[in-house]
């Protein structure tokens, strides 16, 4: 009983690695699986549910058993498929031991049948059991400290993408390239040639031609998903274990699938014993890695494709016995040096922990150290089926085919059911799956990764879960990380047999991306850490930092929250604004130019208030709505000159305003008469505010006059700063006299420094939020919600005067807009001057019912008491009345007030 060993030459660099603590040697070019086999290791891990020992079944991404955790250079990567991961020197490989239901199996039953969890943990409630069961579930261990890297992916457009670099795929790529198409050839292996690398002599001539024709070739790449309009998702492996690789979206004009076919296992008792391997995999390990997987193999087959394997293993010195379930044929008689038993099936595999013999249905026993099996072939139709092809069984051709043609996908080679005979003999490789008559013993495994037996399938059938979709969900067949590549067709055939139907009646479950697992690191790509959601920053950030600004992220923009070490400075900033002069960096406020003969007309349409009659030099406040009449933003419009306006919208609404304005411009007004240009980033804006702001500004000498007659509130003048144009507008965000100074953004720092030097104190965004709340100035999105209309905020004219010709005009006349119980913006005040939590509900009645909620709430340093803004049903009619607020179990009383709590006459603007 020798088992697998390396018989190939000594060529190739030696790679030391460890498996389960054992120090071993592999060779350059090895996969983890081939390196383990070369070291005679047959048992790789324990199964998911029953913790049964399992070995390597396949040589590709269909592998259900050989899943390992790998650590290299301090990075631990869980659940690596040993058959597709290249070996690297220094890898520490641990078996993945299914934690399984070990304790359950000890106390309850040796096996957990289909639906066990559903049936057993129904009472009193599944959630009582779920945590313990969840702990048992899962495969490898994730190390949260380990970070895989990823490279930048991208998108690519080609005329033709060929998936699969075997002989058929190479021919398709050559044909396309000769036609002048831009061709991309994608193959999951590290070398082109597909199965000819072990079934033939390779395809060096075709590879050379593909390269000479200039086709793009991606090896080590998996086309994992087919998406609408001819797009493929492609994962390219990175360099080494710790690289998650890169993710590509390939836009194709057409796709040729040359993805070949996957060999199916045979079903017999204890077919999960280590040492049971697909026949094609045994050939793969021999030819690609010089590993003979057994010196005394039994090759069990129901088709001709195993005979070349038998000859190759015999040629490598193995003592081969073929067990063919079919009658003797020309091929079974033509294998010299190999013993063949025809008309016989494997009844069971024998051995403790690994295969040591097989028992045929005749009762005959044959000793062996490898049981190579071939149960036929399933075309790898995944991408075609993801695109809507739907796989069905073709009784005549005895093979799986797409039921519907996908116009942009064609099939070639084995995936199309086309496999040329290697010689002159008949070549019967397409065969129907064979299902044993009864799985009553329950030790016949259909899905090895999820431990689903033939008995489970039969139980599902008895309990009337007879469609393939129910079978999958009830037994978990096909739901493991291999997505049932070796199991699905056998499961469907077993269900067909158990219910007396034909395989054609059943079909297969839906194929979904990804074809093979894609590392999360590749999906994230470079979008993580600081790059995940890159912050926009202010031009004057260094100047703010120099003054001790504490920065926070406000909707993706890094802005000074306050100046100082903690939030206690916010109140001081508020008081400075009411008593002296403060400066606030408002550079992110929108500065969107609207120009052209129809500029005024467009603005009249965009705002719920007229803008076209603004005189040059004047400023007007306005609201924008959507067509449902809901307030989307507020802002001011400056008239820079005839046919030239500047819209100053909220910082976080610039993108939305421009997008909406462009939509109406292009679809309603036309491109020729009005133009929109977002100048937000080109101009820095400092907002100077407070009773002494006029004096501070005078010190800068930027504008000719600050006389209030010549330069009244809601107007602007042009001046100069450091020889560059400066625009100074009299607007107010705080309720105090205010000047908004805009200069080219390169002058942001000197302007800030000049204002500070002239006596202004810095004001952060938090203090601004308090100041504007004292005034009842609303923040759209905070003090409004998805139902707020202008008249809910006190802007009654658009609705009452039945104004028309703007976005949302008609919606303001709908019955819902006239409802007396609409939520309206009001203020709240507690008798004790205390704070009402933001988010608290206003409630009334019994049982209590919410009539609104608090949108902003602060302890006003100016007034020395709590102030709050709230949206309340029929709020304005309630002014002066008492209301009850409720928050997280706490209740209290408050008086409903007008929204503006400070200087309602507006006299402070002119102080």
């Amino acid at each position: 009983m020798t088992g697998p060993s390396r018989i190939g030459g000594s060529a190739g660099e030696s790679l030391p690695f460890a498996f389960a603590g054992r120090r071993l040697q592999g060779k350059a070019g090895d996969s983890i699986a081939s390196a383990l086999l070369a070291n005679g290791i047959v048992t790789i891990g324990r199964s998911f549910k029953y913790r049964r020992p399992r070995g390597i079944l396949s040589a590709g991404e269909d592998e259900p058993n050989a899943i390992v955790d790998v650590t290299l250079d301090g990075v631990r990567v869980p659940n690596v498929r040993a058959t597709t991961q290249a070996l690297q020197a220094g890898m520490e490989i641990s078996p993945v031991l299914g934690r399984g239901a070990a304790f359950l199996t000890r106390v309850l039953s040796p096996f957990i049948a289909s639906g066990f969890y559903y049936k057993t943990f129904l009472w009193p409630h599944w959630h009582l059991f779920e945590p313990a069961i969840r702990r048992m579930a899962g495969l490898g261990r994730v190390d949260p400290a380990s970070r895989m890297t990823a490279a930048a992916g991208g998108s690519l457009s080609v005329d033709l993408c060929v998936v699969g670099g075997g002989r058929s795929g190479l021919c398709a790529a050559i044909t396309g390239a000769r036609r002048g198409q831009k061709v991309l050839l994608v193959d999951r292996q590290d070398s082109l040639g597909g199965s000819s690398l072990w079934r033939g002599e390779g395809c060096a001539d075709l590879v050379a031609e593909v390269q000479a024709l200039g086709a793009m070739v991606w090896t080590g790449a998996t086309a994992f998903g087919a998406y609408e309009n001819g797009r493929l998702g492609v994962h390219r492996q990175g360099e080494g274990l710790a690289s998650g690789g890169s993710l590509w979206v390939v836009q194709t004009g057409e796709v040729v699938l040359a993805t070949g076919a996957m060999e199916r296992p045979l079903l017999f008792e204890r077919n999960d014993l280590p040492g049971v391997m697909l026949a094609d995999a045994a050939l793969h390990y021999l030819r690609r890695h010089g590993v003979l997987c057994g010196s005394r193999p039994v090759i069990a087959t129901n088709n001709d494709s195993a005979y070349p394997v038998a000859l190759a293993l015999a040629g490598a010195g193995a003592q081969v016995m073929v067990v063919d379930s079919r009658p003797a044929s020309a091929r079974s008689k033509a294998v010299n040096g190999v013993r063949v038993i025809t008309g016989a099936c494997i009844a069971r595999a024998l051995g403790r922990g690994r295969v040591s013999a097989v028992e045929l249905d005749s009762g005959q026993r044959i000793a062996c150290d490898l049981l190579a099996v071939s149960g036929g072939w399933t075309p790898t139709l995944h991408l075609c089926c993801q695109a809507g092809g739907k796989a069905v069984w073709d009784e005549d051709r005895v093979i799986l085919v797409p039921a519907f043609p996908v116009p942009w996908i064609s099939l070639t080679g084995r995936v199309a059911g086309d496999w040329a005979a290697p010689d002159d003999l008949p070549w019967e490789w397409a065969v129907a799956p064979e299902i044993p008559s009864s799985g009553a013993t329950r030790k016949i495994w259909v899905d090895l990764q999820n431990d689903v037996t033939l008995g489970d399938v039969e139980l599902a059938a008895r309990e009337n879960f007879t469609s393939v979709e129910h079978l999958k969900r009830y037994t978990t067949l096909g739901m493991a990380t291999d997505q049932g590549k070796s199991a699905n067709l056998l499961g469907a055939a077993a269900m067909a047999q158990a219910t007396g139907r034909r395989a054609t009646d059943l079909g297969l479950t839906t194929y979904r991306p990804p074809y093979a697992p894609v590392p999360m690191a590749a999906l994230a790509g470079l979008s993580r850490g600081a790059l995940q959601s890159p912050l926009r920053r202010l031009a004057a950030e260094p100047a703010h930092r120099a003054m001790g600004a504490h920065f926070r992220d406000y909707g993706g923009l890094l802005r000074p929250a306050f100046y100082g070490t903690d939030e206690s400075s916010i109140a001081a900033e508020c008081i400075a604004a009411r008593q002296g002069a403060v400066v606030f960096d408002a550079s992110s406020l929108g500065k969107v130019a609207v120009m052209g003969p129809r500029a005024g007309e467009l603005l009249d349409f965009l705002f719920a208030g007229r803008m076209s009659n603004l005189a040059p030099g004047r400023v007007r406040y306005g609201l924008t709505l959507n067509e449902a009449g809901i307030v989307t933003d507020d802002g001011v419009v400056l008239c820079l000159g005839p046919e030239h306006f500047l819209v100053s919208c909220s910082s976080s609404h610039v993108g939305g305003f421009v997008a909406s304005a462009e939509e109406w411009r292009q679809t309603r007004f036309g491109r020729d008469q009005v133009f929109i240009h977002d100048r937000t980033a080109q101009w820095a804006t400092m907002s100077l505010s407070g009773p002494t702001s006029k004096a501070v500004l005078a010190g800068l000498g930027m504008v000719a006059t600050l006389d209030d007659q010549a330069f009244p509130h809601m107007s602007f003048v042009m001046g100069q700063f450091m020889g560059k144009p400066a625009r100074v507008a009299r607007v107010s965000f705080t309720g105090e006299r205010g000047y908004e100074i805009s200069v080219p953004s390169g002058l942001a720092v000197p302007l800030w420094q000049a204002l500070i030097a002239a006596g202004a104190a810095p004001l952060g965004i938090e203090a601004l939020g308090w100041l504007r709340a004292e005034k009842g100035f609303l923040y759209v999105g905070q003090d409004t919600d998805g139902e707020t209309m202008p008249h809910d905020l006190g802007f009654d004219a658009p609705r009452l005067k039945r104004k028309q010709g703007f976005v949302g005009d008609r919606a303001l006349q709908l019955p819902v807009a006239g409802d007396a119980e609409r939520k309206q913006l009001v203020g709240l005040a507690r008798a004790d001057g205390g704070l009402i939590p933001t988010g608290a509900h206003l409630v009334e009645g019994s049982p209590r019912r919410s009539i609104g909620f608090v949108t902003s709430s602060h302890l006003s340093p100016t007034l020395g008491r709590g102030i709050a803004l709230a949206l309340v049903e029929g709020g304005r009619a309630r002014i002066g009345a008492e209301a009850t607020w409720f928050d997280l179990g706490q209740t209290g009383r408050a008086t409903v007030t007008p929204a503006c709590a400070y200087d309602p006459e507006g006299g402070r603007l002119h102080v």
Partner: protein
Amino acid sequence: MTNPMIKPGPMICPFCGPRDASEFRYGGDPSVARPGFGCSDADWAGYLYVRENPRGLAREYWVHSQGCGQWLVAERDTVTHLVLRVTEATP
């Protein structure tokens, strides 16, 4: 399959040429006309919320939002997802 001869491919912006589909954003149904101010409440509600959901050929607004910013009208097959024609949007 409206026309099996038409192949999938990148969206072709009349201003920028073939560009990756991720650069474009759907913009609604261009056939929905904005009713006048004198329309009924039901007409306005229909304009706001009621849309056809055609199987097969559909005319759709698309915006080249990560490109030239132009509004476009695409003729697209909602079954095959193939984009048959893209023209600039006009009022």
